[in-house]
């Protein structure tokens, strides 16, 4: 074979390759298979490494469980579902990059994420730009369904306002109106404390508090101050591991004998990281597994335990609900188009086997926030079962605690 023939063949091959590449880059689908065989892809971006990894992993577990469940029952719109999970590494740049990867390269129909509210917000800018349906399972900062609400973004977990308004009446009733706050100095901490102050002031209470660095490990100076103030209850607004340390030091100093302890979130993953004497206080839970009066929950928990050998936490439920939400929206809209999914989801009520709690659980139209029940109750050392660390005393309807849409500051702009 002469050299020129070889180079001609090479050139042809190169040209063919370029053409193939160009066609893929342009985006024309290289249709070989029938559309029905192409799976529905959902992308999840979560900080699987870094300080939030425990919570992120729970959400992923819930989503994967839902994926298997949905596929067993026929998938979404007759197609199988494929969940693509990417690690945002608790870094905004990586989170944004992975979101673009999922949308540009993997052509996902929906995006879930992120536990880190800052990353969730940055992701929402990308998904909004590309008109992709976006659910935030567990990123708590208020502006996501408040001042920065977007037509394509929906959220499962509560706002700080909801949690604060739900637990304040209980704390005032049980302990009193003089409070001391221990709050982390960043957006989530600020909005949480502001929400509490608003609720407390309505009840005629007074307060003092300390704003501490996010990763603060030693609370002795603050607790010394708290003891001198003699409040009725100490509000532990810290998150993650710092919350655990604050609890431990609080009980080590014997302060539970002089004042109550409470706050908004004290998640199951964190409670299990505490020694028994620090498993105490009055808190809100966004979902709780132990609901013996709700048959769907009993079944769900039994099935989940059988499949994974773990008890589902609220974070697991977030992931689970997010996946089913995509399915429900798609079934109602009969399409996977972003704007249509968003429209279908507004004011949609979750069926009992997804809501997994009594009452009506709805995605509110005005701000796209899910309105579940907020479980208010007491954390205690395990009673028998290692996961039985919380007993709910009241269920506060989400809408009641959330306030009106106008209060959140959300002005929804519909897609063009």
């Amino acid at each position, binding site marked *: 074979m002469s050299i020129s023939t070889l180079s001609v063949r090479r050139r042809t091959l190169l040209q063919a390759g370029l053409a193939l590449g160009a066609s893929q880059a342009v985006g024309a689908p290289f249709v070989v298979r029938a559309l029905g065989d192409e799976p529905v892809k959902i992308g999840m971006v979560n900080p699987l490494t870094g300080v939030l990894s425990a919570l992120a992993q729970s959400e992923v577990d819930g989503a994967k469980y839902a994926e298997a469940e949905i596929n067993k029952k026929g998938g979404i719109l007759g197609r199988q579902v494929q969940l693509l999970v990417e690690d945002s590494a608790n870094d905004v*740049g990586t989170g944004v990059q992975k979101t673009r990867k999922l949308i540009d390269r993997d052509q996902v129909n929906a995006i879930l994420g992120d536990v880190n509210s800052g990353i969730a917000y940055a992701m929402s800018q990308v998904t909004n730009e590309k008109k992709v349906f976006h659910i935030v399972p567990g990123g708590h900062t208020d502006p996501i369904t408040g001042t920065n609400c977007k037509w394509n973004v929906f959220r499962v977990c509560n706002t700080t306002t909801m949690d604060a308004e739900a637990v304040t009446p209980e704390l005032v009733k049980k302990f009193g109106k003089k409070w001391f706050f221990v709050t982390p100095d960043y957006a989530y901490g600020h909005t949480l404390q502001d929400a509490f102050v608003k609720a407390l002031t309505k009840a005629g209470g007074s307060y003092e508090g300390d704003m501490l660095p996010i990763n603060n490990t030693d609370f002795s100076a603050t607790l010394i101050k708290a003891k001198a103030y003699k409040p009725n209850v100490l509000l532990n607004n810290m998150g993650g591991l710092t919350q655990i340390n604050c609890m431990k030091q609080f009980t080590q100093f014997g302060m539970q004998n002089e004042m109550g302890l409470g706050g908004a979130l004290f998640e199951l993953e964190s409670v299990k990281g505490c020694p028994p004497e620090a498993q105490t206080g009055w808190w809100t839970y966004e979902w709780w597994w132990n609901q013996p009066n709700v048959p769907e929950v009993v079944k769900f928990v039994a099935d989940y335990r059988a499949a994974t050998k773990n008890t589902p936490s609220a974070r697991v439920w977030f992931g689970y609900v997010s996946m089913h939400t995509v399915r429900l929206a798609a079934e109602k809209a009969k399409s996977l188009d972003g704007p249509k999914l968003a429209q279908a989801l507004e004011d949609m009520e979750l069926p009992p086997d997804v809501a997994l709690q009594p009452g009506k659980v709805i995605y509110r139209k005005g701000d796209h926030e899910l309105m579940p029940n907020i479980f208010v109750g007491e954390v205690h050392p395990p009673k028998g079962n290692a996961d039985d660390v919380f007993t709910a005393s009241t269920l506060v309807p989400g809408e009641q605690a959330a306030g009106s849409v106008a209060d959140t500051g959300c002005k929804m702009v519909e897609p063009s």
Partner: protein
Amino acid sequence: MSMAIASLGGRLPMQAGRRELALIAVWTALLTVPLWLPLLGGYTALAGRVLVFGLAAMGLNMLLGFTGVLSFGHAAYFGLGAYGAGLTLRYLVHSTPLAMLAGTLLGGLAGTLFGLLIVRRRGVYFAMCTIAFGQLWYYLAYSWNSFTGGFDGLRDFQREAINLGPFTLHIEDGGTVFYFFLLAIFAVAVAVMGVVLRSPFGRTLLAIRENERRARFLGIPVERHIWLSFSISCFFTALAGTLYALLNNFADPLTLHYSLSGYFVVMTVIGGMRTFWGPLLGAAVFVVLQDYISSMTVNWMSFVGATFMLVVLFFPRGLLGTLRRRVQV
């Protein structure tokens, strides 16, 4: 390849021909990225990230590879560039060029001033100070909530379209237009860097790297040169930072953290510390590796860390460095 050389008029000296070829190869690859990258399972935003990190690493390399001084805190200037650009876009004026200018100046000047403080130190002490200085800005960024957005980062800004008179550069859409914009800025920056490094000033830096004492005996004001090199490298890294803020429409404290500084050093070493294009190659390898592996396993940190360690132990010259050696032999 031989045809190409023949067409250039006979035999050329190996060095010049090779350098030209390298330049052509690099620029062809960069210019056609939107065509071939998706074929390999990539996406254009990934290339943008490679360019930005590559520029930052090349800026660092001026100091590290060409002057022989180790800074492990260059992310500080990168992050300052990002925040400078973001703050300008958010609070002052909706203009991308001005934002880039502000960010570059902020990072560059911070570096220049800091350099004055530590220029007499060397080795690990110098490195430790650079790390600590970087963390200072990290701490400032994540606690000054009202101004910088704190821990959650600076948001509510976006890259604005650039009005170039007869036509507008719509970079706010992201995608291919923005990629070529990044490439253009990268090209200009790299050209300037090349000119600086080939100038007598650049040659002096090499002399300082090779043997500082001898350079001092030759009457070269060593401290002044090191300070200038430090300062210039900070300006380039800060420019890269402004591009990063534009890429993400976001600036967050982790762009100031020492782990990012470490990544820049790693990119420089993987690619080849003492080569010009090495850091870009290192950035490409690092970004692609991290992107690819983190999609496959949660334990990507082990793989990435192990890669750093293997490179340090067995390939200290980096990719281009080893290649260059082989060719010379």
